[in-house]
């Protein structure tokens, strides 16, 4: 397999403009002849489907939810970055680019990240034009706030519901096209496999989640915007339905999976309360603008009421360790600091796995009403879940799996190594390296969908000239049969355990052995235990009901089956990457508790190629060549 990143030549700042000029075009009259399948309706998927339809392509859009408006981008809270420099505080495209590269611990592709920063300004304009109600100042101008890993205020926000408002913007654009008949929408439909004909991605096989019907859809290109794989850890801030199936099925059909071990553990989530828990809830990073993270200096104070512990006996861990960024240190660093304090026995709350996020000082300084205006919905959510009032006592928070930087490998055109397969947003690997900065996921999803794919997909159509097969092509038939057979196989087991119970067991293995601290030993344990669990799944899972109607247990089982394979790939990638970088922390590779990168041996993307069932996947590398940035040791001290 050849991984050609297709990065354009020329100076970094001019690559994208040059590339846009070099890309071939499809004439307006010809665009409607091309059909595009878009899977997923989050920020990347909705924005791509709407924009491609506006351009004149025929689009089919698929989502597993009952409406495209419910994709999990909706839950993003804090904001979206844009290098507008409206605050006159020294921001620029160059600075956003550099912050993102550095935040990713120098493991992202330079040219992609620069393009992302350039595009960020157009995204803000586009969203405003759609009627996204970003926060405003009294003079009517857009307001900004700061976010982790940055020393400027470049984050645009709509209270604590920025993802919701951006997604509703993209959804409204998509809805407009559906109303015009240029997009055909398939809600409650799950992609179960990719169809590759003559080496090109030419369609998908889906299951109608209401009728159980398995059917094929052919197209000239397939776009996957299916999000990340956080729920491989079972507990995460992702939605219950988020899954790896679409990207993992594509992997099994030949698409390379890049850097699966880069997973982001978000520092500010509500701690686990018990075994019944189905998900964890994020408390937006924006809270760290006004909240101070601390634990008691002494173990014996941990059970005391926080208000009875005087300031002198508190350890403000981030302010102490990272004075120049303080509470706004990047996520991976803040998470490890919390874990370290809890591992020392200084954690708070019933489980001992929690640290305080304290607003007392900000409430004193700004007044409770200002804090309420900024974060009210988050404080309310916290109270509903924990029964505690964070205006009166500090929040308790602990890190949780939140985002996955790894994903299907794509070139500069966002096309995978399989021609005709494009991958957008969290589902691809390209922009965040080993750690994503806050407010950058929304930016990337919308950059990919509104402003990058619409240019690059045309080039593929204009240059590949690969005919679109019909759905009665033998390959579609074959894949449909495979999908149906797999469903039947799962239904026929009728074992003793619910799919959720396997999912929970897998999650425990992933969190314990491949979570915030990974070692050779723990990862090798996973490589042994995950296949055992998988074997048990295929003997002992119990899926009730049948395949011919709405069967949520069957949906869950199919997703868990893929996670049970994918978890092994993730662990293998983590074992092979013998360095620490960003969210990937190998205990063997550290310096005073910080990540110790090995640029000599690991300044590359690792992309895995499927070799067949029961065979070890093959690891390929794409060297990360930095033309402009100097790879340095990340410091937030």
């Amino acid at each position, binding site marked *: 397999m050849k991984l050609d990143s297709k990065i354009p030549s020329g100076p970094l700042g001019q690559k994208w403009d040059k590339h846009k000029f070099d890309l071939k075009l499809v004439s307006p009259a010809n665009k409607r002849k091309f059909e595009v399948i878009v899977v997923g309706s989050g920020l990347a998927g909705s924005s791509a489907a709407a924009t491609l339809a506006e351009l004149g392509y025929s689009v089919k859009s698929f989502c597993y939810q*009952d409406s495209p408006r419910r994709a999990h981008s909706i839950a993003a809270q804090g904001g979206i970055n844009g290098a507008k420099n409206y605050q006159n505080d020294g921001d620029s495209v160059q600075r956003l680019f550099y912050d993102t590269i550095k935040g990713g611990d120098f493991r992202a592709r330079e040219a992609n990240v620069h393009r992302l920063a350039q595009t960020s300004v157009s995204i803000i304009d586009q969203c405003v034009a759609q009627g996204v109600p970003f926060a405003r100042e009294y003079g009517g101008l857009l307001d900004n706030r700061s976010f982790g890993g940055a020393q400027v205020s470049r984050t645009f926000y709509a209270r604590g519901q920025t993802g919701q408002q951006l997604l509703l913007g993209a959804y409204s654009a998509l809805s407009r096209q559906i109303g015009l008949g240029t997009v055909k929408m398939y809600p409650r439909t799950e992609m179960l496999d990719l169809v590759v004909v003559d080496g090109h991605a030419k369609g998908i096989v889906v299951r109608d989640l209401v009728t159980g019907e398995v059917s094929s859809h052919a197209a000239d290109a397939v776009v996957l915007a299916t999000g990340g794989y956080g729920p491989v850890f079972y507990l995460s801030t992702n939605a219950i339905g988020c899954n790896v199936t679409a990207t993992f099925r594509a992997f099994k059909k030949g698409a390379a999976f890049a850097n699966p071990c880069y997973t982001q553990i978000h520092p500010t989530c509500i701690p686990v309360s018990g075994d019944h828990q189905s998900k964890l809830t994020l408390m937006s990073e924006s809270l760290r603008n006004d909240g101070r993270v601390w634990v008691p200096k002494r173990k014996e104070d941990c059970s005391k009421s926080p208000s009875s512990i005087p300031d002198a006996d508190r350890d403000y861990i981030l302010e102490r360790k990272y004075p120049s960024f303080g509470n706004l240190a990047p996520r991976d660093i803040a998470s490890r600091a919390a874990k370290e304090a809890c591992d020392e026995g200084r954690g708070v709350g019933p489980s001992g796995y929690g640290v305080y996020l304290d607003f007392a000082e900000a409430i004193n300084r700004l007044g409770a009403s200002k804090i309420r205006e900024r974060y009210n919905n988050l404080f309310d959510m916290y109270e509903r879940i924990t029964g505690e009032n964070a205006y009166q006592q500090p929040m308790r928070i602990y890190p949780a799996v939140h985002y996955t930087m790894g994903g299907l490998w794509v070139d500069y055109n966002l096309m995978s190594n399989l021609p005709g397969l494009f991958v957008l947003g969290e589902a691809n690997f390209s922009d965040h390296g080993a750690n994503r900065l806050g407010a950058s996921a929304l930016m990337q999803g919308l950059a990919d969908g509104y402003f990058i794919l619409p240019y690059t997909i045309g080039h593929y159509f204009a240059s590949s000239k690969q005919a679109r097969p019909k759905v009665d092509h033998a390959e579609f038939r074959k894949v449909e049969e495979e999908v149906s057979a797999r469903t039947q196989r799962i239904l026929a087991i009728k074992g003793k355990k619910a799919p959720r119970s396997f999912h929970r067991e897998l999650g425990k293995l992933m969190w314990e052995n491949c979570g915030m601290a990974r070692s050779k030993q723990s990862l090798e344990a996973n490589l042994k235990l995950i296949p055992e669990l998988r074997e048990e799944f295929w003997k002992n899972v119990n899926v009730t009901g049948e395949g011919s109607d709405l069967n949520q247990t069957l949906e869950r089982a199919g997703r868990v089956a893929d996670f049970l394979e994918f978890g092994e790939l993730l662990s293998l990638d983590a074992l092979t990457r013998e360095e620490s970088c960003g969210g990937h922390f190998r205990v063997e590779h550290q310096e005073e508790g910080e990540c110790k990168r090995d640029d000599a041996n690991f300044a590359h993307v690792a992309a895995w190629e499927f070799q067949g069932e029961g065979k070890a996947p093959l690891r390929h590398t794409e060297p990360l060549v930095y033309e402009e940035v100097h790879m340095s040791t990340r410091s937030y001290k």
Partner: protein
Amino acid sequence: MEKGMNLTLIVWRQKDAKSKGSFATYAARAVNPDMSFLEMLDVVNDDLIQRGEEPIAFDSDCREGICGSCSCVINGVPHGGQKATTACQLHMRMFKDGDTITIEPWRASAFPIVKDLVVDRSAFDRIIQAGGFVSVRTGGAPDGNAILVPKEDCDLAMDAAQCIGCGACVAACKNASAMLFVSAKVSHLGLLPQGQPERDRRVLNMVAQMDAEGFGSCTVTGSCEAVCPKEITLDNISRMNGDYAVAMVKGK
């Protein structure tokens, strides 16, 4: 003996849209007060699967009150009656040991039942498709700060834009009216300068689609506002009625 509450659940079971449904009774044992309502249902479902029975189908996804998937009527009230709270954010500490809880789907002819507690809310999507947008194509937007929006207007627009499209307003209304949902979108865009060019046709088209979907009329009882998990207010309905009247007078 495990700690926790023991509850009796009376749950609507219906195989599919065509079948006749009925209530079934289940015991929920050792319920931890820190569980969310849907996590309690997860545990009941795992028990059912264990026994080889079909679990209760219900919609849920984000489980943090923002996606709008969850949709069950709990003891006669959509989302269960805690102020500004979706079913997924309702926690079991709101109930007490020995309680009997009735769980039903949204009931409205415009929201046909798919299975058990799952309903088809695609009518809401079709209303948005009829006009719930600003017609701007990607690219060519002016600078974000070129459009000044007074903070007060923006805050009001945001209050309306928070709607999660769950449909509780319809489920609560004796007429199954969708006015609160439709008016939230009409208000959101009507309050902003970006929404002005299409203000008249938007309200006319969305209301026409709402009527075509078979939602009932609004008699301003306020039951919708009372159950809305995002606290969308009746002011939006007044605003929409005003916009509708103006658009009718203009004859657009």
